[in-house]
């Protein structure tokens, strides 16, 4: 069959799964999870087939497209349901379906005892479908559909344990913050429509590359896209939801809030590269956001005792790297995506590891209550360790390759900007090394600090079942080798170049120096962490800590700010508005009614029952009548 028509299959498989599982009812409870996993795998298989087919073609005609039907045909407005599969999309497809399948598999074990498991897999499939739609759409509006679709899926999955109020709140928060970002995306689309009369990738990008329109317009569009990216990818100032999102089941955190969905922002900016290239101001904004988040996430990650929140902070920070890279333009896109993929592997691995640990520790998440677990769960330790080495950029592992390139590119920006960015990225690397080492030490080394949980039964850490360990192992492989593979004579860059364009950056200092610098800061970070957490015992209850630490534990107070400004303010606003609506808007009407009533009451007093007063009124009336008639003649 013609490969182009297979694109729809990618989405159809998981979508089918979602429909079947969510509408299927109880009778699927016992088989549902396997159906979901199989369909995810099927999607992956299709992806592989398409991939091999794509490799078979030569670079220029690797872009496939499939037009399903015309979606919203309105005068002067054309929105189609059509897909475009190029190298960029392909990369994502493989990442999403691959990691997705693994995590489905992992969840089979992880969610074994949850009576709502069928629905969980339904949601996971729904997510896959939406995410694939996001990366396969050939126009921004359809992308927007996927964009909100993944938002919905993440909402459903974060809040999966809805009986926990915290989970429900976190889910709502995630959706709302994302909506703010979506507002940006929709405004961007509106701008595109008024500027280009369309929002299909092809014409929009070509037109903006050709400079058909003013830079101001493009800057506006770019900034709006950036806002969208901030929402989805948890970048400052819309990052606050990611930490809470850890309320969701761990596989969800791994798939959605580490590997795939949160990277959608990177995809969006890379995809819209042509626009950003033509709008330097927007690019600058992107870089700034990336840099800020990079540090922000790292600092938060250093302070958290909750293993998942620590990892969440690291995710933020890593995505900060990617966003920063995309902000660098053609010298950055490729590495952004590359880091995205490697990060997908090792961060997913880390999360699964964390999940495995929690699995063994009665869902305890506080690292201060771990310790010395390496003996008890060797596989988890091994895979987690590899992921750890990868993320801190241990030479030779995936993270090393991708991150180092980004640091180079940052320096290559040139001028003070270049130095600043370089410094920031280096600092980020150091922090990464620090907080990841901290996690590692607190979890797997040191003496046991286990505490009995609420029900009072002490934890009996044990290795997780195969269905969980296998995915971890696979991902571990990915986190070890992917980076190196991609960097072999820049195979990855070559692969993406036709889509994103690629040019070599020329840093002011040689690549070797930068590499050594990277490694040194990494070592420093590890050392510091070791001194703090390796050498002396870790207190079970967190010490008060420095001001910065306390702030970092509270996400640098950014959440509190939101709370005060938005939530409190909003509540006051709505309350006062309700009051206004009742007293003012309604009051005016009721007031008129009341006043008419009062007038009536007073007037009816005139009808006092005395015939003579009636006669008076008649007499007066007659007088007035006569007077008026005469007056009319007079004037």
């Amino acid at each position, binding site marked *: 069959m013609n490969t182009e028509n297979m694109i729809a299959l990618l989405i159809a498989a998981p979508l089918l799964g979602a429909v079947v599982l969510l509408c299927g009812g109880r009778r699927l409870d016992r088989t549902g999870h396997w159906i979901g996993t199989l369909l995810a795998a099927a999607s992956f298989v299709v992806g592989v087939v398409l991939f091999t087919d794509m490799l078979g073609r030569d670079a220029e005609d690797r872009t496939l497209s499939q037009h399903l039907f015309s979606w*919203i*045909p309105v005068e*002067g407005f054309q929105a189609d349901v059509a897909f475009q599969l190029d190298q960029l999309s392909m990369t994502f497809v493989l990442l999403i379906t691959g990691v997705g399948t693994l995590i489905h598999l992992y969840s089979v074990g992880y969610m074994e005892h949850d009576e709502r498991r069928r629905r969980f897999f339904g949601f996971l499939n729904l997510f896959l479908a939406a995410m694939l739609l996001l990366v396969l759409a050939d126009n921004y509006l359809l992308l927007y559909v996927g964009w909100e679709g993944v938002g919905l899926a993440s909402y459903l999955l974060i809040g999966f344990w809805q*009986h926990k109020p915290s989970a*429900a709140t976190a889910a709502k928060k995630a959706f709302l913050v994302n909506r703010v970002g979506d507002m940006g995306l929709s*405004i961007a689309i509106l701008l595109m*429509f008024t500027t280009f*009369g369309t929002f299909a990738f092809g014409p929009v990008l070509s037109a903006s590359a050709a400079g058909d329109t003013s830079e101001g317009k493009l800057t506006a569009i770019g900034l709006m896209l950036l806002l969208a990216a901030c929402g989805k990818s948890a970048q400052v100032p819309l990052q606050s939801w990611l930490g809470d999102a850890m309320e969701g089941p761990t596989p969800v955190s791994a798939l959605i809030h580490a590997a795939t969905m949160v990277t959608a922002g990177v995809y969006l900016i890379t995809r819209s590269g042509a626009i950003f290239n033509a709008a330097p101001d927007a690019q600058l904004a992107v870089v700034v956001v990336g840099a800020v988040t990079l540090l922000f996430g790292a600092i938060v990650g250093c302070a958290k005792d909750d293993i998942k929140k620590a990892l969440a902070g690291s995710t933020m920070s890593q995505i900060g790297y990617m966003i920063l890279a995309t902000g660098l333009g053609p010298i950055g896109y490729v590495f952004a995506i590359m880091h995205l993929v490697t990060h997908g592997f090792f961060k997913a691995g880390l999360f699964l590891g964390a999940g495995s640990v929690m699995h063994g520790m009665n869902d305890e998440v506080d690292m201060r209550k771990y310790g010395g677990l390496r003996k008890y769960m060797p596989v988890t330790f091994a895979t987690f360790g590899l992921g750890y080495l990868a993320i801190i950029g241990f030479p030779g592992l995936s993270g090393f390759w991708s991150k180092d390139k980004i640091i180079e590119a940052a320096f290559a920006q040139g001028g003070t900007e270049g130095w600043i960015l370089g410094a920031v990225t280096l600092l980020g690397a150091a922090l990464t090394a620090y907080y990841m080492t901290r996690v590692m030490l607190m979890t797997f080394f040191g003496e046991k600090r286990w505490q009995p949980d609420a029900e009072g039964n002490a934890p009996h850490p044990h290795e997780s079942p195969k269905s969980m360990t296998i995915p971890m192992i696979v991902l571990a492989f990915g986190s070890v080798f992917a980076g190196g593979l991609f960097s072999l004579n820049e195979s990855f860059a070559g692969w993406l170049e036709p889509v994103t364009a690629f040019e070599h950056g020329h840093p002011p200092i040689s690549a070797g120096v930068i590499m050594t610098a990277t490694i040194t800061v990494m070592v420093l970070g590890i050392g510091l962490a070791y001194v703090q957490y390796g050498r002396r015992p870790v207190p079970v209850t967190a010490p008060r800590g420095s001001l910065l630490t306390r702030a970092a534990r509270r996400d640098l107070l950014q959440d509190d700010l939101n709370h005060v400004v938005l939530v409190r303010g909003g509540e006051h606003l709505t309350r006062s508005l309700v009051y206004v609506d009742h007293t003012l808007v309604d009051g005016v009407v009721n007031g008129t009614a009341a006043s008419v009533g009062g007038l009536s009451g007073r007037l009816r007093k005139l009808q006092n029952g005395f015939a003579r007063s009636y006669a008076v009124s008649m007499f007066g009336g007659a007088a007035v009548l006569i007077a008026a008639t005469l007056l009319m003649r007079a004037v």
Partner: protein
Amino acid sequence: MSFPLLTATAALPAIGAIATAAVPAARRTAAKWLALLVSLGTLGLAAAVLVRFEPGGDRYQLTESHAWIADFGVRYELGADGIGVALIGLTALLIPFIILAGWHDADPLETKSSRWRPTQGFFALILMVEVMVILSFAATDVFLFYIVFEAMLIPMYFLIGGFGDRAHAGSDENAATQRSYAAVKFLLYNLVGGLIMLAAVIGLYVVAGGFSLPEIAEARASGELTMATNTERLLFLGFFFAFAVKAPLWPLHTWLPNAMGESTAPVAVLITAVVDKVGTFAMLRFCLGLFPEASAWATPVVLTLALVSIVYGALLAVGQRDIKRLIAYASISHFGFIILGIFAMTSQGQSGATLYMVNHGLSTAALMLVAGFLISRRGSRLIADYGGVQKVAPVLAGTFLVGGLATLSLPGLAPFVSEFLVLVGTFARYPVAGIIATFGIVLAALYTLVLYQRTMTGPVKQEVSKMPDLRVRELAVVAPLIAALIFLGVYPKPVTDIVNPAVEHTMSDVQKTDPEPEVEAAK
């Protein structure tokens, strides 16, 4: 003279209403089935209308014209354009679900005197409303429209005041007063609007000497009929006021929350999903059709009010404690969008607005009816009385969520298409307005999700722990609506095909063309 299809579509429920009312008191169930069958028959006729209607054909099709009150220059003139057809379809589609959802709402609590037949009355009144609504969508004679526009109020009034929501806060006495307050408020607001419109209708007669919309529009276009600027503006205001009350547009909206809050869920749906559409529809057909210049003149103000409605309605929805009032304010916000789309004077905006009328009908119906089922189980409208429903009644919660997602116009569901079209249409001509409107998107998410979180999630409240999940009848109501929402979200083409030509006609009425994109990118 071909078969008068439109008249038949309106006549069938009329006959059905009389028949239903005539069913003896004891045979309550028979009356219900009769009403349901009639409404389904009407749906069939409406489908026939949709089939017979050729999108490419004349502006008004299936026209009928008979002499009626020559002395007032009034004729019985019916004719459907794309917009009217779409809305007739919506009405005919929703009524059966409303009837089915209200199946037990009018069962007498205790057996009153044998002559008191609330059930028969309830369903007969619903059918009467259907008659009036269908006629108002089909009337091309201004006077005829006015008559049904007003006559509609009476059955509505009795539905609101006579069959209040049994789940209310406080004592029966209190509820009765609340209810009749709501009913009277509804009637007076709309009656005042209607009377002011009456003045304008008379004025129109004095100016134009007749009431046939096509003829007047024709005469205006050809320049035979010219209106003094001020006259036209006054007349426009007279008409617009009535429609703005009906729609409702801020600050004339306060009757809606009361009416929807106090009436049963199906009736609330009838109000917001069906009856109020007449207001927005009439803006599109009469305000723009009869008074193009004045419409253009009023546009800035109208847009402002629409924006206020959008934001204000959403904010108030956030602040509500009562599920149904919350939905009511949400509707106010949505009507803001519709009016925005109409007066943006772009084809995307107006197609979007028309589509919005249909989609909002479906989405509110879904949300409100499920909410009704929820309320009927717990006997309370207060959000605070719920919690953790999702655990005991997952299907109910799921459908409720889908309804909510439709209300916050999630892509993939029908309302998104229309809302986005409205935004595009507005933004193209009034960027600032477009951007302000997009805030509505965020707020919509806020009130919907807050509602869902407070009622459905969290630990299970003791009162709801025994709550049964949706029954077959209820599922039969909700499932088709959700299906429709998804279908029209993925494939709205069937509706847009019908609507587009009509919108182009309207655009030519107001002599506007869409703003051209800055760059003519290679399509």
